[in-house]
């Protein structure tokens, strides 16, 4: 009877209890990690760029952090340890991946460890007004006029887990203009790191944004840039025989003419040109309000001649219009002062 009881009741119950306990122990979290879900380690900003100061913050609903001892590690090396030290700031190292860990030890001895990868992600957003005219030796940026074409390029600096940069062609780009993604949806996607747009004639400023993600979504970066339209500008330069165009000085208001002849040339800064051919634009030269016919082959140039013994001044203006855009035009007015040792009065000859 006793043996039967042991065989039929006690052993099965004991075995069940043993396995039950075993299974419970297997599946129940250990005391060390019991509060893990209630502790979080966050980073601000979420996608820091290289050299940027980042802030790491431990928060918890399960542990009284004000009485917990928090130890901070960078790549396994302890850097700080104090009671209630929930925040840490550091500078994100460009081109490096650092593991930042916080070990939280509660008053009851429970320990939670949280880690985060600090892998600075950065994106440079550079734009160019691709059809905006400047002369070939101009070292400044070509600026966009209303209706001009613009190319925006994202240059991401995103590091993968192995610490190398992810090629720009292997990232996913989501572009938006003034917050709207739909208009440029076709230009978003895998490897699409450039965006083309036409400068809106109704708004002076447009903001282009891009969000960039790795294919697995583990790495991200983002940024935006504002593009402001400008007015085309007419600048007049002296074209000196043998020396070429004297770009060092633009003729802004006045031109003093001492020699018998002087050649001037206009540069139509920031007009949209489908090619670099400046003859595409329409030039109207006037002298003292009277229109002067231009040479179709070189409408940008004019030659001033001073008759012998004549001094005086004359008002000259050049007006440039775009044949395809009402929004692109500019004018420059200058006073040409003719100085001669003898004589006075007006005029001068003007030829092209």
């Amino acid at each position, binding site marked *: 009877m006793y043996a039967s009881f042991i065989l039929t009741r006690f052993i099965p119950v004991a075995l069940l209890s043993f396995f039950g306990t075993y299974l419970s122990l297997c599946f129940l979290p250990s005391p060390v990690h019991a509060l893990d879900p209630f502790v979080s380690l966050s980073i601000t900003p979420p996608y820091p760029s290289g050299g940027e100061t980042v802030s790491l913050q431990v928060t918890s609903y399960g542990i009284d952090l004000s009485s917990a001892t928090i130890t901070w590690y960078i790549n396994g090396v302890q850097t700080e340890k104090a009671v209630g030290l929930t925040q840490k700031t550091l500078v994100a190292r460009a081109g490096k991946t650092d593991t930042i860990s916080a070990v939280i030890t509660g008053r009851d001895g429970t320990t939670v460890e949280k880690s985060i990868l600090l892998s600075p992600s950065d994106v440079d957003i550079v734009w160019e007004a691709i059809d905006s005219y400047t002369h070939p030796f101009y*070292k400044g940026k070509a600026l966009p006029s209303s209706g001009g074409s613009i190319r925006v390029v994202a240059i991401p600096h995103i590091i993968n887990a192995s610490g190398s940069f992810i090629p720009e062609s292997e990232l996913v780009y989501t572009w938006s203009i003034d917050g709207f993604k739909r208009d440029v949806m076709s230009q978003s996607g895998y490897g699409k790191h450039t965006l083309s747009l036409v400068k809106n004639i109704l708004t002076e400023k447009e903001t282009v944004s891009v969000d960039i993600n790795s294919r697995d979504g583990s790495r991200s970066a983002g940024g935006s840039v504002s593009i402001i339209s400008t007015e085309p500008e007419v600048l007049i330069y002296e074209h000196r025989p043998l020396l*070429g165009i004297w770009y060092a000085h633009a003729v802004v208001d006045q031109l003093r003419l001492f020699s018998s002849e002087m050649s001037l040339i206009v540069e139509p800064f920031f007009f949209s040109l489908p090619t670099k051919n400046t003859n595409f634009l329409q030039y109207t030269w006037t002298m003292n309000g009277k229109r002067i016919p231009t040479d179709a*082959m070189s409408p940008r140039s004019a030659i001033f001649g001073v008759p012998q013994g004549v001094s005086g001044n004359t008002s000259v203006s050049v007006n440039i219009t775009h044949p395809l855009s009402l929004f692109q035009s500019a004018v420059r007015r200058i006073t040409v002062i003719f100085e001669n040792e003898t004589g006075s009065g007006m005029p001068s000859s003007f030829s092209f």
Partner: protein
Amino acid sequence: MDKRTLLIFITSGILIIFIIGLLVVFLNRTDTTQEMSAGTPSFFSRLFGTDNPIDDMISFVTGNNVGTNTTTENTGETTLPLLRQIHPLPVSGATFITISRISAEGKTESVLGVRVMERSSGNILDIPLDGSNTLRITNTTFPGVEQLYWDGDVSHMFARHLDVESGIVTNTFLKVIPGKEDVTGTEEDESQGSLSATLFPQQILSATSSPDGKKLFTLTSTSSGSEGSTLPIDGTGVVKKIFSSPLREWLIEWTRNDTIYLSTKPSSGIPGYAYMISSTNGGRPEKIVGNIPGLTIHMSPVAHLGLIGSAEKKSFFLSLFSKGILTDMGFDTLPEKCAWTENGARVYCGVPIFPEPAPYPDAWYKGLVSFTDAIWYANIETGEYTLLADTGAYDTPPLDIIHISVSPNGQFLLFTNKNDGTPWIFEITKQ
């Protein structure tokens, strides 16, 4: 002596003392004015002093040390001005050269000089810096060169010149063919050398030469952006593509043999970015600085050291970039108005005196504003900076310094005055 005579005597004495006092004050004041206008060290340079023995050798320009002397000056008894124009006509380019010549005693001697290409003629001239006569090396006419790059031994050049009618820039490899001894007895002077020209068939956006002068880096426009290539500066050899970008508007400079720097073309207030690539194989552009308004750069021959310019709200600022950290320089100018010494320890800059408010650098590039520069010196190792020449205080034309370089011996600065295109020398160290 009666009372009246005594009174006259005392009054006269007081009057004489008063007049002497006035004279002393006046003379002292005159001296002070002269000292200030003579470009003596500023408050800052007095403040920081110069402990470095090399720094102690640096000249301060005085009124007598400024001039527009040309190289035809007879230096037999006179002292050459420390700051002087060395050629009266605009040049397309200028570079230091060691000139070999036969002395009066019949010995071969070397003298430091400057080789220039005269812009109106294209002739090559050698100008000795000891003030002796200019030597005309070539008489081939090649006028209107806008940009010129020299090779290391200054016998080859890469010239860029604009055809005004077409708007196309022509690029040409030039070679100096030295003259021979004039033995023919004909009217033709064989002692004059000539230039041989070979057209570079490619249209390029921009070019820069390597520090050793052996190679060029050129940027070419493509349908999708731009490509960068290196090639020998003499036009022979292989063109090697090392860079491509969807962007076309790059400013390029090659100030370290192994590194080429690229920065986005600047405009006031618009964020700019700068990168570097290997000059041998390009590779992924490594970012130097970014998101800086109106960014321009001039990097030193030393790694991770350069000048960074920023510009917004009608002003410009200069910072030192050293190992990833930007610090404010003691003066503000555009980086391209500065020259580094070979070891990167010192930098000399043309610094605009009271620049007018304008959107920089755009307004300066367009020729809407021009500067009158002072010459400043900064010792990067010690952080000292010193005013060397307050050119605005002298009877010289306004100097707007561009294309500035330091001579190999560190004694001279060579620069072009943007206002009139003429070459100038500033003697840094006392002889």
